[in-house]
Structure formats: C-alpha cells, structure tokens
C-alpha cells in the first residue's frame, strides 16, 4: 500500500540493494539495544562454559579462552529493529574451534546461548558450526565495549542480531528447541532476516 505523500526514501545505492534484507535500512552508526542495564563484566570474572543440558562439558577462563585459535569475520549484521550495518569486523573463536577444544561434535540439534545477565537465546546447532558463528572478542581490532556485549559476545551474523547474545558466558546443548529471553517475549524462534522472521506470528 503506497502511503500518501511519502516519497523521500533513503533508497540505498542499487549496488548495495541485494545486501539489505526486506524492511531494513542502512545504518552508519552502531545502535545499542538491551533488555536491562549494561552489565560490567571484568575479564578476571569471565569464564565460558560448554554444557549438555545441565551437565558442564568444559569451562575456560579468559586466558584459556583467548589461547584458542582466533579467526576473523567481516559481515553485514541485521537488527530486528530494522537497521542493517555493513562490513562489521570481528575477531574471536569459532564455535567449531570451541567444540574441537572440548573434543566433541554437537551432541544435540539445538543450543541456548547463555549470558552473564541471565539473557538467553536459542540457535540451532547447525547455524553455529562450519564457520558460521563465533564467540567474538574484538570489534574493529579493539576489545568489545560493555555496551556492545564485551568482553565477549556471540556472533551469528546470518540471523537477526538479538541471536548474537551479548555478555555471553556459555553455550548449552538442549534436546528440544527451547525459547530464550526474547523468544519467550514474542520474538521468532529462528529469526532469518531474509524471511523477515521478526515476531512469533511470522512464518
């Protein structure tokens, strides 16, 4: 439905069109969104735990985690609040390398990413492996600021950005696809920006 009198349009240059999912606009800044106050997580207190259900498989301290193989990824990211940001440069540890260090293959098809502030979000295991996702430690070559989820955040760039849990401190394999924080509050279980899977009522 055309809106009477709306012309303006910040239509992005056509050579970038194909990189902007439906309903998104191109953002130059880096907006911050969160459900509560920004937790200040000190690296001394930071740890990352891999779990199968309630059972811990392996736990890394900040130093141990930083000693894992590091990879770089530059990706477009898409926030459900409709901004898309091109070419965001991250460095961190691929989920593949975390699993390899723990000596396991994904034991189930589903995971919940867990955060220091109690936040959680579900991501299918297949969306985390084969180079698709990492626990990011650096943004643009510098430590990730607290507002953006530092010292470490999950990065799953092909899904809406709420799946890239800030202040991440663990990954839990679950038997079923269990909704996380926003998924319990009306957001989509999967969150593919190309299919505009924003809210639970979206197919």
């Amino acid at each position, binding site marked *: *439905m*055309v*809106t*009477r*009198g*709306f*012309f*303006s*349009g*910040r*239509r992005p240059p056509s050579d970038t069109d194909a990189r902007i999912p439906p*309903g998104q*606009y191109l953002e130059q*800044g880096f*907006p*911050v*969104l*969160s*459900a*509560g*106050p*920004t*937790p200040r997580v000190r690296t001394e207190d930071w740890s990352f735990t891999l779990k199968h259900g309630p059972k811990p498989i392996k736990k890394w301290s900040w130093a141990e985690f930083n000693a894992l193989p590091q990879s770089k990824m530059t990706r477009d990211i898409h926030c459900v*609040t*409709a901004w898309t940001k091109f070419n965001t440069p991250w460095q961190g540890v691929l989920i593949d390398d975390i699993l390899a260090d723990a000596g396991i293959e994904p034991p189930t098809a589903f995971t919940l990413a867990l955060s220091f*502030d*109690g936040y959680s979000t579900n991501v299918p295991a297949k969306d985390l492996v084969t180079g698709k996702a990492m626990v990011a430690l650096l943004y643009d070559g510098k430590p990730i600021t607290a*507002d953006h989820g530092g010292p470490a955040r999950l990065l799953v760039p092909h899904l809406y950005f709420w799946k890239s849990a800030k202040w991440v401190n663990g990954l839990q394999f679950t038997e079923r696809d269990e909704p996380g*924080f*926003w998924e*319990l*509050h*009306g957001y989509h279980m999967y969150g593919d920006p190309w299919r505009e899977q924003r*809210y639970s*009522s*979206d*197919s």
Partner: protein
Amino acid sequence: MSAEPQPQPQSPWQTATISRIEKRTPRVTSFWFQPSRPFTHLAGQHVDVRLTAPDGYQARRSYSIASAPEAGAGIELAIERLDDGEVSPFFHDVAAVGDEIELRGPLGGHFIWEASDGGPVLLVGGGSGVVPLMAMVRHRGSQKSAAPIALVFSARVWDEVVFRDELIRLDDRRDGFDLVLTLTREQARRPADYSRRVDAKMMAQAMERLPKAPRLAYVCGSNAFVSAAAEALIDAGVPAGIIRTERYGV
C-alpha cells in the same frame, strides 16, 4: 483433495486510519490511529509503522503506545520530530486526519506493566521516552490501582514536558502517583523538581517518595539517557535484575 476453504494466513500488517492529531509540545505531536483490525495492547507495548513510497521503497519505525489499554477510540502515538529524520518529519509535515497508515502490533512483551504486577514502581523517562511510561500511568488510573508509582521525567525545558498538564493533575491527586520533573536546560518550576541531568542522588530521593523500595523499575529514552539513568539507579542501590529498559536508538 479437500474442498474446505483454507483460512487465509493474515499478514501481520494492517491499515489504520488517523482519526485525530494534536500538538503536544513544539516537537511532539500525538496521532490517534483506528486500526482496521482492532486489538488490545498492554501498557508499555509498541507498534511498528511502515511507510511505502510509490517506487516501493519502505521505511519502518517503532512507536510506543501512549494510551491506556482501556482507553478505546484507537491508539495514541506521540511522535517527536527529528528534523533530519525520515519517518517522524513525514508524520509532522504530511500526515493528516483520514490518512491510512500501515502498522502492526501490539509488539513487545518485556517492557510492560499491568496493574496486577503491583508496586512500588519507579519509572524514569527521557524526552519521548516518557510515552510507554505514560501508558502505564494512565493504566494505573483507569484500573484505580493503588500501586505506588514515582515517575522521574527528564526534559530539556518546561515547554517540552510531554503530557505536562495531565501528569501534574495526576500528581496533585496525591493518590500514590508521584511526579518528579527535571529540566536539563531551564530552572525547575515546581519546588521539589530539579534542573539537572538524572543522577544517583535524584534516584535515591525519588525512591524516598515511595512507601518502600521499588519492586520494578522501567527506564526509557535515547540510548545515552537509558545508559546514564540505569547506572544512576544501580548506584542508588536498585538491583539490576528489577530494571527494565527500552532504548529508542541514537
């Protein structure tokens, strides 16, 4: 093959007709929308609005619902004009009564308060961030809830205090709703108000106006405001776990 008619999946988008427009402050105007598929919202929820240009280009933004769930007669959105923005100037300069706009909602299940949630509640809003908090304050009134609520509302100047007369009227009832205004670029006009940015001391004093420590705190506004106000609450001793935030962006 079955000849049964299959229910058509409904698009989450619907058209809503603008039924009333009222300027609230020099920069904020309220728009009332009559959805073609009426819905009931919860205080604190928002809708997404979508504008479509003739060439198919679309812009969408979120706006909190200012009206109480009980208000009927459509939903009120209070939109602040950002001069270099895309969607808010459209509403201020172009939109007129009778226009049809696409929207979807109600959305959001976290930043909400229902009278049954009880109190005490501490609300902290900056600029247009007062909008979802206004829905909560109005909901308290229509439900005749006795939950103690204190609203700390930061605006630049007196004339930019959105919903000012209504808020002061509610405050004057002394029925458990307490309004704290703070002006960042002008002298306070009421004796107990402030003229500075929100800080931990102001939060601590706002809490003293409640009969006991808040059970819930809600902070809404620009990203910078929400960060500062949430820090101030934590410094004033509010547990991080009871603070809910909604950020309007840059």
